[in-house]
């Protein structure tokens, strides 16, 4: 592997990792606050990508313009799903939580498939093959935009959680539901909000992914699994961990892809997943939530 390929793969890995980071941040946020693994998480990415598709083909707008639309759709959907469904099983046995969310996942996939059909689709933009050269490395414009947006959103969300009143309320609930409610925080509202934010971020990741990306209704599963891996790797509930973990896995996949080939690279991630689950389930950043 030459140094040029090394750095090119690095860039590719980071760009992919940015998307993974966004999706995983959404998942870890939900887990951190509600201690529930969102088995329907990937479907919000699918919603995002199909929103972009629909916006471009039906409304004729640039996919990135559909980000607000995706945020609204996914955010509201997420909040409704949380309030109406997830809320009922927050204190139930994990089996019930898993089955409920698997059901939600199926429902969402089914609706998307019903609306758009099962055949693969792709949405094209005029600049999708455009590349800029930076430091001798080729960067596809859409991927560069995606990475930049991921960084921007992640940092923005971090600031939101650290410094705003609502953000602090969210963090309070994630530390102790009881203490937070004793302090007057409307815990149920926070739950809705968190799930909505988690869903919205993931949907945005979908939009960022959309240019020239193959779309099928079941594509979310792969991203769900990666998100599970990243969240465990970065420690469940740990925001920074999810971000870093996302980048790490993006890099792992990029290098594995180079050595093993595109369709098998996922095996590297799965091996990491299995190893982490067996040997350090509390993740890179220590304490299990």
């Amino acid at each position: 592997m030459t140094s040029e390929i090394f750095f090119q793969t690095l860039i590719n890995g980071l760009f992919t990792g940015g998307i993974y980071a966004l999706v995983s941040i959404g998942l870890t946020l939900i887990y951190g606050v509600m201690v529930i693994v969102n088995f329907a998480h990937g479907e919000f990415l699918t919603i995002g990508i199909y929103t972009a598709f629909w916006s471009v083909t039906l409304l004729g707008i640039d996919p990135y313009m559909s980000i607000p639309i995706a945020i609204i759709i996914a955010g509201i959907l997420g909040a409704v799903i949380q309030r109406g469904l997830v809320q009922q099983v927050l204190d139930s046995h994990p089996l019930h939580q898993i089955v409920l969310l698997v059901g939600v996942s199926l429902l969402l996939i089914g609706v998307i498939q019903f609306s758009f059909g099962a055949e693969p689709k792709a949405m094209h933009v005029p600049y999708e093959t455009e590349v800029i050269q930076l430091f001798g490395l080729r960067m596809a414009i859409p991927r560069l935009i995606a990475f930049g947006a991921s960084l921007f959103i992640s940092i923005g969300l971090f600031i939101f959680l650290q410094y705003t009143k609502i953000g602090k309320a969210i963090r309070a609930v994630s530390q102790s539901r009881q203490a937070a409610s004793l302090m007057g925080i409307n815990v149920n509202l926070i739950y809705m909000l968190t799930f909505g934010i988690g869903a919205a971020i993931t949907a945005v990741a979908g939009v960022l992914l959309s240019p020239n990306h193959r779309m099928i209704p079941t594509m979310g599963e792969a991203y769900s699994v990666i998100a599970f891996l990243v969240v465990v790797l970065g420690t469940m509930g740990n925001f920074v961990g999810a971000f870093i973990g996302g980048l790490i896995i993006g890099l792992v996949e990029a290098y594995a892809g180079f050595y093993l080939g595109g369709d098998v690279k996922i095996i590297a991630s799965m091996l990491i997943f299995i190893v982490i689950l067996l040997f350090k389930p509390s993740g890179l950043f220590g304490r299990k939530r």
Partner: protein
Amino acid sequence: MGNMSTHSINNQNKLIQFLFGTWERTQLSISAGLLLLMVFSPLVIKSPYYIGVITLACLYAFIGISWNIISGFCGQLLIAHIIFIGLGGYTTIVLLNNYGISPWIGIPIGGFVSGIAGVVVALITVRYGLKLDYFALFTIALLVALRTLFLKWEFVGGAVGMYLRQETPSLNRMIFISKLPYLYIACSLLLFGIIIQYLTYKSKFGKYFIAIREDETAAAALGVNLTKYKTLAVMIGTALAGLGGGFYIIYVTYIDPTGIFNLGFNAEMVMASPIIGGLGSLVGPILGALVNKPIAEIIRANLAEARSGITMIVYGIFLISAVLFLPRGLAGLIQTLYYRWFHGITSTHQEGE
């Protein structure tokens, strides 16, 4: 209960007592009744399509029983159970296509292979203390890894998968012109499953499984070797799943990694029936399968001209509704009614089992 002096009323009561005297008996009676319904359905149902639906419903019930033993009785969150169905299926088809081994032998071998795989997974899981969510995620990681492996493995056909070798119909190859023999094999499998499930339930290890589900810590203090019995539960369940997978492949004549090793199919084939019917009960998987498969098929065939995605929507709604409104499934509902209606007959019971 009025004047019971006549002989026939006594016999009638004895019969009712025999069939429905306890909730356990009632479940068995319902299971037997449903099975008989399916066995004799060809007398009433002539359409091969619907015979096929019933055949699959039987198979789903059998698969449901296999998962019920692991997740229902023993409480282990082995979510990606489809892994073991796929392994059984691939084993059977490889043995048939590549080595000409009859499915009558290949299917049991598929069960054996899946059982072994189950033991390996269980031992790893227990050794590393993977519980609940973590165990569930582990099985999902295995699913994806296995799918990727099979996608690249030329010996099993890679991404293209394997088609059952075209042969003239023969008993030996389990290839039949009519749909009926498949139905009867499926019914036999289901009968086998019902028996195994019941024997498990009545045995020492069955009680140990339930103890582990209810409270591992207390179970250990009572002498239950957690590793041994969790592994046993998984082994029985995965072996049965392997059998089911072997038959499934013979029936649908085709297997491919993406189609079989995926969570959506897992939800439909493994999870839906026991959840709807009642996970942990005896009759749940059977009841659930007979309710959800035919309804899903009817909806799919008749609604929206079989438009894509309807099946998933239906299953999604089923699963969500089951969790929210019927956490103990249809069996739980019937059980509650049972105790209200049959209270007079079952005078030895106050409440409970």
